[in-house]
């Protein structure tokens, strides 16, 4: 019996591994720096907004004797709040786009999540005397999703339907499993609908439907954020118009099953 000794030069492998590690460290560092930058931008924008919103609120409280002055303070306060929503939405969008906050998908039934959002929005629905029909079916609608992000999309779409419905109008929230195994959610309203040429562009940042642009109070970023979130879930969001008026927003997510052995990559 003999002994075979094998020598091999592995310095090249070591070098490759070092290079890989260095590249990964650099990528992490870049992502950290961007994240820090966004946090700083947020800080810089919020500090002046503190003065704008704070002093205008004080002004409103103290200008009770003078209606005209009070109105001016209210206008400043409203504009400041709008700017704050814009700052928040922009930060949110950039966080999603640069994947600073990766999605944390969980296997979950979409129905209880949707009902939570409905309950949250109930006061707005009642204030406008709307009728919301919820049809989520008796079967679990299992998807792999990041719960707060999925709720953000549902909230956004439902809040739009509430905002644009005529007073006393009907909204339909439907959830189902389609024959291809995808989970589908539809939110349908009887609002003004969306001009056909704009059905796609409303998902771009800062584009709002010309039918509802005036007085919508939105930032024009909500649907862009929704689309990024849905893409991050390998899902889709799109809009269509309804026969008889109004629009429908559709969400589609790959269906999952409790106990799936192969976790989908997200």
């Amino acid at each position, binding site marked *: 019996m003999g002994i075979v000794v094998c020598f091999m030069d592995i310095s090249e492998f070591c070098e490759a591994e070092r290079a890989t590690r260095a590249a990964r460290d650099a990528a992490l560092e870049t992502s950290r720096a961007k994240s820090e930058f966004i946090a700083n931008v947020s800080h810089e924008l919020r*500090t002046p*907004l503190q003065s704008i919103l704070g002093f205008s609120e*004080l002004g409103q409280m103290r200008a009770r004797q003078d209606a005209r002055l009070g109105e001016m303070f209210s206008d400043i306060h409203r504009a400041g709040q709008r700017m704050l929503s814009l700052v928040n939405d922009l930060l949110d969008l950039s966080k999603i786009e640069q994947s600073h906050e990766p999605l944390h998908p969980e296997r979950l039934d979409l129905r209880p999540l949707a009902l939570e959002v409905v309950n949250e929005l109930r006061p707005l629905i009642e204030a406008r005397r709307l009728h919301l029909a919820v049809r989520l079916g008796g079967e679990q609608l299992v998807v792999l999703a990041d719960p707060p992000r999925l709720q953000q999309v549902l909230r956004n779409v439902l809040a739009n339907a509430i905002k644009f419905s005529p007073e006393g109008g009907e909204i339909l929230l439907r959830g189902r499993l389609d024959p291809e195994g995808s989970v589908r959610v539809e939110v349908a309203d009887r609002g003004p609908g969306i001009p056909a040429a704009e059905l796609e562009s409303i998902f771009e940042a800062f584009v709002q439907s010309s039918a509802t642009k005036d007085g919508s109070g939105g930032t024009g970023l909500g649907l862009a954020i929704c689309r990024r979130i849905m893409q991050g879930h390998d899902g889709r969001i799109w809009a269509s118009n309804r026969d008889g008026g109004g629009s429908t927003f559709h969400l589609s997510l790959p269906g999952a099953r409790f106990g799936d052995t192969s976790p989908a990559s997200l």
Partner: protein
Amino acid sequence: MKRVLIVEDQADIRKLIRMTLEFEAYEIHEAADGSEGLRMAYAVRPDLLLLDVMMPGELDGLQVCQTLKADPEMAHVKIVLLTARGQVRDRQAGNLAGADEYLVKPFSPLQLIDTIGRLTVDA
């Protein structure tokens, strides 16, 4: 009268807080950075500190908070952190430093009055 110390580098925000509280019964003191804030905390012995987190200089708000909460003589002082960074990570840092409350800028003056009232009532 309860004493409130404002530690905040932005003069207009110090003014906003002072004006917010001017009809309430508080004795108000101001400091413009962390080191001055710490020094004044010992000199003034406030019941409550409104403490900005991000300030230029040697000590940021978190460090001031930690130092005071670690001193048995000062640990009872209520501390409200004021910050423009409201992410989960930032809140955790505030909790770790021992803050009693965390207000994210822009906060509403009414919200500030409520928070201070709540924290000083049992102090």
